[in-house]
């Protein structure tokens, strides 16, 4: 019965409704700030619905297309929270646009709907549709400034994204062709019975799995699918860059986790295989991200590479999942907790950058010189977030690393953890360069850098959570564990 299942989709449906309402209101309302208010209201309503569903038992809806479980709800809530902060951070930015303000907000909401559906998708077709829904909105958003860099960013993102989608679709087609199913659980049934020689005997299926990794790899920006990141991050409107680096990445991790755990979690040799593949990709990703970040002079590009490095740390969690299938869920819960911490930290950093560059109209690190004097609170917040990205106390970053790495060590990935901790040391180099410039340099002008209430609210929320997650992480870890528990056998 489809109608009786509709209440399980209230978060998505209500958000979609609000997105359409924003577009319509845009036609009649002169005072465009109202649109931001309506968008936030929509996100809050949707978040309320999500919370209300937390207690309901896991349910498959629409004939197994979507799965409403705590894992999906966790991510939905995360996306909604991120979207609220992004919209708060966008207000100043958007008010400069002459046209299409309503579309901007609506697209942010629609891409959030896409990501929410993506995390719940339990069927390859649903995965693809949801992925496209979120991606196409993001392509448009990336080119929203319509200046040279932004257009280039949008076009690059669109072209490379289209290639990635094609690769993904091809992979799905092969998997469907060889197993006869698109639903993840049905694929698992077929794969479960295979032997290692059986799989090697059908290279097309192997190819299919590898193409899936490539398609999703684009979304999470792991090496070697990270090429689009720096240009797109630099050119896109900064709030959208923040959105891409946090929500879109989290969605990618959510779907990789679900597809690989559910469809390819058994037999053991297979999960160990992709676990090891991801472990190697993880080591390469974090190293490339960190090393290349060192030489960047544009702060958005630097954070772009830094987000590649962070994806590397997150993949430690994915690799652990592969190593630990059937044993425990430390990999999943580590990944979820890390995503929570990474989201607030990275958003905080981007919001501080938005506030600063609004005034100085530059993203060059050298232009941040003396920001400690010109905007002490913004500089302090940015410093705090960078400290968290480095993984130093008393911030979320440290606890997140400890937690995700402890899971990895317990499943034989000590070598990967050692690479990861050495990478953290490398990362200190470029994060602290920004800190150094801000606090030690003499300011270029004495002019203060003001910031709007919306930005300050968003930034304080981020910093508050970075601190809370770093000092009293107990209950947050509990939530991550509860969400990861659906993967228990």
């Amino acid at each position, binding site marked *: 019965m489809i109608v009786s299942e509709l209440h399980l989709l209230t978060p998505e449906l209500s958000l979609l409704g609000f997105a359409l309402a924003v577009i319509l209101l845009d036609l009649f309302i002169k005072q465009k700030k109202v649109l931001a208010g309506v968008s936030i209201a929509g996100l809050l309503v949707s978040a309320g619905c999500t919370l209300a569903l937390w207690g309901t038992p896991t349910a498959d809806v629409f004939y197994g297309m979507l799965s409403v479980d705590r894992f999906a709800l966790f991510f939905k809530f995360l996306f909604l929270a991120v979207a609220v902060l992004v919209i708060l951070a966008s207000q100043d930015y958007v008010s400069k646009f002459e046209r299409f303000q309503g579309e901007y907000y609506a697209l942010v909401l629609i891409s959030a709907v896409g990501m929410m559906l993506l995390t719940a998708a339990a069927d390859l077709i649903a995965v693809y549709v949801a992925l496209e829904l979120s991606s196409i909105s993001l392509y448009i958003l990336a080119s929203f400034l319509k200046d040279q860099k932004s257009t280039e960013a949008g076009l690059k993102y669109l072209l490379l994204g289209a290639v990635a989608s094609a690769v993904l679709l091809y992979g799905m087609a092969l998997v469907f062709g060889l197993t006869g199913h698109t639903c993840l659980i049905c694929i698992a049934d077929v794969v479960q019975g295979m032997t290692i020689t059986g799989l090697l005997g059908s290279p097309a299926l192997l190819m299919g799995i590898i193409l899936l990794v490539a398609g999703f790899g684009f979304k999470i920006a792991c090496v070697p699918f990270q090429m689009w990141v720096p240009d797109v991050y630099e050119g896109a409107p900064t709030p959208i860059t923040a959105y891409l680096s946090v929500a879109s990445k989290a969605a990618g991790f959510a779907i990789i986790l679900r597809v690989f755990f559910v469809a390819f979690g058994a037999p053991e040799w297979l999960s160990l295989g992709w676990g090891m593949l991801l472990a190697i990709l993880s080591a390469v990703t974090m190293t490339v991200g960190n090393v290349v970040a060192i030489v960047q002079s544009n702060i958005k590009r630097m954070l772009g590479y830094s987000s590649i490095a962070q994806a590397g740390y997150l993949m430690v969690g994915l690799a652990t999942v592969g190593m630990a299938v059937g044993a425990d869920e430390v990999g999943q*819960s580590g990944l979820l907790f890390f995503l929570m911490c990474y989201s607030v930290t990275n958003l905080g950093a981007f919001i501080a950058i938005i506030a600063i560059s609004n005034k100085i109209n530059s993203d060059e690190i050298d232009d941040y010189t003396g920001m400690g004097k010109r905007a002490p609170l913004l500089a302090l917040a940015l410093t705090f977030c960078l*400290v968290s990205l480095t993984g*130093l*106390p*008393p911030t979320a970053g*440290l*606890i997140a*690393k*400890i*937690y995700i*790495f*402890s899971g990895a*060590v*317990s499943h*034989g990935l*000590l070598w990967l*953890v*050692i690479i990861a*901790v*050495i990478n*953290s*040391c490398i990362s*200190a*180099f470029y994060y*602290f360069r920004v800190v*150094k410039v801000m*606090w*030690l340099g003499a300011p270029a002008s004495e002019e203060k850098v003001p910031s709007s209430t919306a930005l300050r609210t968003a930034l304080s929320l981020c910093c508050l959570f970075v601190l809370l997650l770093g000092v*009293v*992480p*107990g209950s947050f*870890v*509990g939530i991550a*564990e509860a969400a990861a528990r659906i993967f228990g056998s």
Partner: protein
Amino acid sequence: MDLDFSYLTAIIFLPIVGMIVIALLRDPQPKTIRLTALAFTLASFALSIAVFCLFDRSGGAVGQMQFEEKLSWIPAINAFYHLGVDGLSLPMVVLMTFLGVLTVLVSWKIELRLREYFIWLLLLETSILGVFCSLDLILFFLFWELELIPMYFLISIWGSGRKEYAANKYLIYTLVGSAMMLAGILSIYFITGSLSMMELAGLALAAPAIPLTAMFFLLLTGFAIKLPVFPLHTWLPDAHTNAPTAVSVILAGALLKMGGYGMIRLCVTIFPEVALRYAPLLVVLAVVGVLYGAAVTLRQKDLKRLIAYSSVSHMGYVLLGIFALNQISVTGATLQMFSHGIITGLLFAMVGLVYDKTHERNLDNLGGLARQMPVIVVVFSIAGLASLCLPGTSGFAAEFIIFIGSFSSVAVSGMQVYTLLGVLGIVLTAGYILWMLQQVFYGEPLEKFDGVPDADSIEKVCIFSFVGAIMLVGLYPAVLTDVIRLGVEPIIGLVGL
């Protein structure tokens, strides 16, 4: 022990409270900021003295943690907010709170970005105290890393010379060390499922998945960088030379001790057998450190760099004492950590004073200051003599105990030879200390230093407190060794020689 008042939490977090108060003050006078910082560090010091007096020294207290506090913190990984002190950590806590008060006095004349300065200084104090009081590995690690941020800013903003280079070097060196340490801690957690230092003591496992030796060295690397052990010491002269005076005092006085403390508390206590197996290697490194450090010190022209290198040499004794692995030598090593903390703390404070007054640190350009600054010369000489082990000072008590202990040690064959080589270091120490005193204070007075003021009253309070402590421990070392013994005995029992 059932105590209603959480002494340790109060001791650790009073500086943070002070920091918040300073941050929230509206348009404060410089004096208000200084007095606030002083008040909170004094309160913390007073409480640590109270703990020292209330500490149970009876025979039943051997190996017992006292003033324990335990609260659940991150249940998912079995981490607790678990504090406590025993004979090993208590002297370090007292040392740090003592230095905390004195560094505020040393910093009295700072004017540049005063508020920020005290905020970082107080945060630094909290983090170091936290390291000495934590009984949970993750909590320990958290405090250990927390120290980095204030140090980075204190060196890079208020330092001198190549301060940014020194700050970066310090940051990267320490991060590499703590990265290894984190890997070690996580391995221990994986093998045992526990993060409690109490439960982990004397870990004996048959064929664990990760070799105990690997874990031992992962942890040891972190501590060895901090102590520092030759050849991982190269960050230290840079950091010391370019740091502001108060930070040098804390760095030499308490931060280096985190390394020695960690070695005893984690490396030796958790892996006694591995420690015994690799003791020869570490003892050799210790002796090399002592002699190399002293030899390099002899060549220094910069007063601050000279004291910094002498720390490398003196920390070599600590390492020697620890890995001689007997009751007396480890007691000596702990006493040496305390004693070096106050002696070198005083030496750096004195160098700071001389530099403040004369704006000169190069030995070639100094001379004949004895006439111009009579108080400073006396105190500087006392500190120097304590550093070269003059009987009656804490330096003598500590190093003598180490030598007695290591000479009779059976942990490493040929220990007597190493001990004798180590004793040679004292001769070199005498060489550079006396030469330095002579260069700075004696000879013909220089005209350019005429009218240079002597120590003022705040400075006198500060340096005489140091002298008092040095004399107290020197004349009556039992005040500390009685306590230290309680902590060391069970640890040496685990080594089982």
